[in-house]
């Protein structure tokens, strides 16, 4: 999938700059996929796509 398309899909699921994210669960095999809570929505996605999201730890809640 082209990077621009992936970017748009992630934004459509609520992954925009400034949103709080929290990894809730991980799969058994290689910790994949992961369940991420972004704002108040829980999304299951694979690590490969999640790698496109830049997160800073411990930022102001």
């Amino acid at each position: 999938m082209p990077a621009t398309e992936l970017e748009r899909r992630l934004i459509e699921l609520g992954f925009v700059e400034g949103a709080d994210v929290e990894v809730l669960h991980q799969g058994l095999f290689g910790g994949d996929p992961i369940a991420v809570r972004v704002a108040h929505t829980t999304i299951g996605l694979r690590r490969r796509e999640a790698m496109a999201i830049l997160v800073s730890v411990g930022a102001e809640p």
Partner: protein
Amino acid sequence: MSVTAPTIASPGADSPASASAPVVALVGNPNCGKTALFNALTGSRQKVANYPGVTVEKKVGPLTTPAGRTVRIVDLPGTYSLRARSPDEEVTRDIVLGRTQSDVIPDLIVCVADASNLRLALRLVLELKQVGRPVLLSLNMMDIARKRGIEIDAEKLSRELGIPVVTSVAVRRGGTDALLAEIDRRLAAAQAATGTLWTTPDATALRRAQKEADRILASVVKGQGKPDSLTTRVDAVLLHPVAGLIVLLAILFVMFQAVFAWAEPGMDAIEALFHFLGDLVERLPLPALLTSFLKDGLIGGVGSVIVFLPQIVILFFFILLLEDLGYMARAAFLMDRIMGGAGLHGRAFIPLLSSFACAIPGVMATRVIDDRRDRLTTILVAPLMTCSARIPVYTLIIGAFIPDRQVWGLVGLQGLVMFGLYTVGIASALGVSFVVKRIIWRGKPGEPFMLELPDYKLPQVKSLAIGLWMRATIFLKRAGTIILSMMILIWVLATFPQPPEGATEPAINYSLAARIGTAIQPLTEPLGFNWQINVALIPGMAAREVAVGSLGTIYAISGGEEATDKIAETLGSQWSLATALAFLAWYVYAPQCAPTLAVIRRETGGWRWLWVTFFYMVTLAYVAAFLTYRIAVAFGGG
């Protein structure tokens, strides 16, 4: 079962009388309750379930508003944006933008939002406002939002968005009153559609819109702070990397044990009823031929299928319960790695799961998959999932050949074998998709898996009951139509021509059925099939369960000393174990279902994939039955 997702068409849904009525389209994120609202508004019974991607096509239903206006309500597949990334989302985009051939062009768009999960919905509202048609926002699931202490200032939200905002509870009586009143008010105002300003947004535009949505959200919503605590606690177990998988297996396991253990009393009752009917017919002073038609053909044939009603109902009880609870998306999450390893798309899980009911809605549900090759792979393997029409076949053979005893003290052997057959179906689907992906469509990286995991919900008892009732009706309707007509055919074939005077062999040996069955014999000999099985396979193409009824009729007509009116006992005495196992293996793979093939043709837009499916399945079935038979014979099961 080869019937589409349960649908009771609303009367006059597309009739010319209502063709000029204004159109109100329900648009919103997946799983926000559009179909539940549609059902509440129009009195329809479209499928509602707690996972994203249930609805994959548009549905139109009539509604008379409190002001007496006739309106056509349109239910659409859920979407996060109008960009339309998959076939189901294209349906929504085309209707919203008025790009369709049909006359279903919305005069009013009702944007439905899950009030307990507003964030993504608000961005969609901003997009819908650009379309140039009147829009109103319905904050659905208000009951859940309230319970969680989420307070939404609807008036302020309306001012911020510049569109009317109402609240609704789709699953409660009177829960749509405010929405109905607002629909009336909007249609009375009769705003004309203006030209659309919508263009496909790029990342920058989407980002800007989401930020704007977040700003509005922060200003109108209080108490969004805490996520659903029940969901969090339950997921700690159900999505746990190890415990989650164990629970998933355990659920499946209990399901198949229950299908056997709980069905017994119901089956006995139905069996007794048909036995009674058979006796009754026999006592009537009727010509022998008519008695045979009624007793062997109708009662014996159809009855032997209807006996499996309790099993079907139990299976669907579990499936519907899991769907309504919100477990399905979790199962997809847990299975993703395994499915991905087999080359299946991340969203293939739910279509494949639907195929446990019937491959037809399963094949249709693949519309949520964006990539064409991934979609084709899923369509190809969907018929390998054990559909509910196989249950009568499996149960009959298992009941006749597998002893009803406990293994390790607590699990029934019969349920275990059933579980095994399901597992073989799943494993084969994974295997075929692996081969297709690696060998035929080489080297394409896997598509992403991104799936919203909805909060758990307590199932509505009423909707569960309706769902079960509809499943039971579909099954009985099939028994009364396709299966009944095939039984009549089989009875005729097995009865005529009548034996000549002074015939020495059993009458059925002179019939057309015996001749047809014997003619195919060379083909199926290596599989250990007898001519009775051969004959049962042909009408079995119309519907899988027909094979059970056909065997019932054929053996009932054959009569003879070993034959009892219990078909299972007859088979037990007439077939070898090896034959029975080969027959099961055949049914795991064989494309014994013409309606499924027809849907594959329709959904893929051509004959090619129909034939690909047919030939690969026949080949697998033949090889599997052959090997099973040989191995069983080698182990002394001949």
